[in-house]
């Protein structure tokens, strides 16, 4: 098992958002995380990545306990995180943004190699390397954000609503990228509002509601369940 989350509790101040959620991601899987607004999808990803401290429960990644670790330590274990809006540095160039993706790599030579590899894989970014990240189109910014998260060669990526606020023609591109990343051996845990897209791409889907597990299973099983369809997929 790559990532195992058990009975996780977390939240902000007096507000406990996650109330015992459990999620599993096997190596090489795309796992979808869906549920209504406020169900705790973002909170779960932020707690796994160490932005928020778990109040109770276990988070294990490749045998390492993640509770109490900082984001930089978790990155070092081979997990990267993509914020909802991409989390780019808009006033820095494409090149500087990518370089910062490799911040935790101590050796300048390894940073250089990772950079060259990504430029070969995303020629568009090489073309635009001197441009400010904020001047790229919405779709190009998502590509830059994904590329930056690849600098550390993660085995698992956490994506928080990768298609939020994106024009429809870019949504397909983002999912093509997700599938391609997965085929190169990276597991992905994707929190998503766009249920149709994630059901088409994921191997396994978890439905969260009010901070707890409501359902989980293969996408096909999810489609069959009338109750799930009515509650979470917006069917009458």
């Amino acid at each position, binding site marked *: 098992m790559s990532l195992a989350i058990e009975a996780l509790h977390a939240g902000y101040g007096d507000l406990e958002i996650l109330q015992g959620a459990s999620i599993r991601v096997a190596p090489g899987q795309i796992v979808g995380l869906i549920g209504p607004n406020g169900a705790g999808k973002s909170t779960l990803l932020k707690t796994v990545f160490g932005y928020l401290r778990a109040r109770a429960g276990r988070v294990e990644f490749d045998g390492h306990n993640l509770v109490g670790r*900082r984001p*930089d330590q978790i990155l070092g274990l081979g997990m*990267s995180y993509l914020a909802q809006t991409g989390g780019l*540095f*808009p006033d820095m160039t494409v090149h500087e943004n990518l370089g*910062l993706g490799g911040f935790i790599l101590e050796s300048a030579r390894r940073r250089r190699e990772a950079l060259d590899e990504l430029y070969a894989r995303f020629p568009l970014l090489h073309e635009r390397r001197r441009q400010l990240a904020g001047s790229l189109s919405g779709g190009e910014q998502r590509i830059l954000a994904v590329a*930056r998260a690849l600098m550390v060669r993660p085995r698992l990526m956490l994506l928080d609503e990768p298609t939020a606020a994106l024009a429809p023609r870019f949504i397909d591109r983002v999912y093509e990228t997700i599938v391609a990343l997965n085929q190169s051996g990276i597991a992905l845990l994707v929190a998503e509002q766009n249920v149709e897209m994630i059901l088409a791409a994921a191997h396994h889907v978890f439905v969260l509601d009010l901070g707890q597990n409501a359902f989980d299973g293969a996408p096909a099983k999810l489609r069959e369940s009338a109750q799930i369809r009515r509650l979470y997929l917006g069917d009458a």
Partner: protein
Amino acid sequence: MWESVADFVVQGIVLGGLYALIAVGISLIFGVLDVINVAHGEFFAVGGYLVFASVVLMHLGPALGIAAATAGTFVLGLAVYPLLLAPLRRRLGRRPSGSLYLVLTLGLSTFMQNGLLALAGGEYLQIPPHVRGILDLPFTSVSYQRLLVLAIAAVLLGGLFAFLKLHRYGLAVRAVAQDPDAAQSVGIVLGRVFGLTLALGVALAGASGALMAPLFNVYPAVGFPLTVKAFAITIVGGMGNLVGALIAALVLGVVESLAVMVIPSQWQNAIAFAAMIGVLLVRPQGLLGRAVAR
């Protein structure tokens, strides 16, 4: 007439270089930590005392003295975040408001002034020029001491900008200024960057204290008026905008220096602060707006 204009312009540029070292430090710290460092001028004073101790008491020579003042204030600066600001944040469980930081650094300022008074006494200490002699130019002449101030200010500020542009940790400083959450997602540890930024900012003040010591006298409260003036410069240049602070500092230095020719010198500060208030009324974001070293 023209000779004295040239004279005042040269004096003004040197003064501007001094203001720049202090204002750029304040602006950097504000841009990254959102902290208005009221104690900034006290690091200028500490720099002066360190150069006095090295040069006058220990006869180490000016180069070592300036280096000791810069390094000493850097190390002191490294302690400020973990000992003072981080605990406040931890105890509160969230980002403290700006007013809390203001009171905290005002406390640090008073504590440092009093500490210097207790340790070194209140006398005005004099320090011999780091370099002697005068350079004759066609229109004016300028002491090597003033040229040294200007040269080192240029080297330090150039070094800072190069660091922010090229070094891995310099990029991290800018990343935190732009978006702390995103900075964490690439593995930047905020506390380390906060500590480093504070140390860099106050080391610039320490270096300028050491450089200016032969031109000012050294006493516990020597830095405070400079802090206040550097705030004015920082606001005119746009809070957190380093290039803005640099330009505003040079302009203010020259304007202040020239103004003495036509306006009695006791009006000098009134003019500087009237300019600040004027800018705030018309363009509250400063002349160049907010941006840390793009």
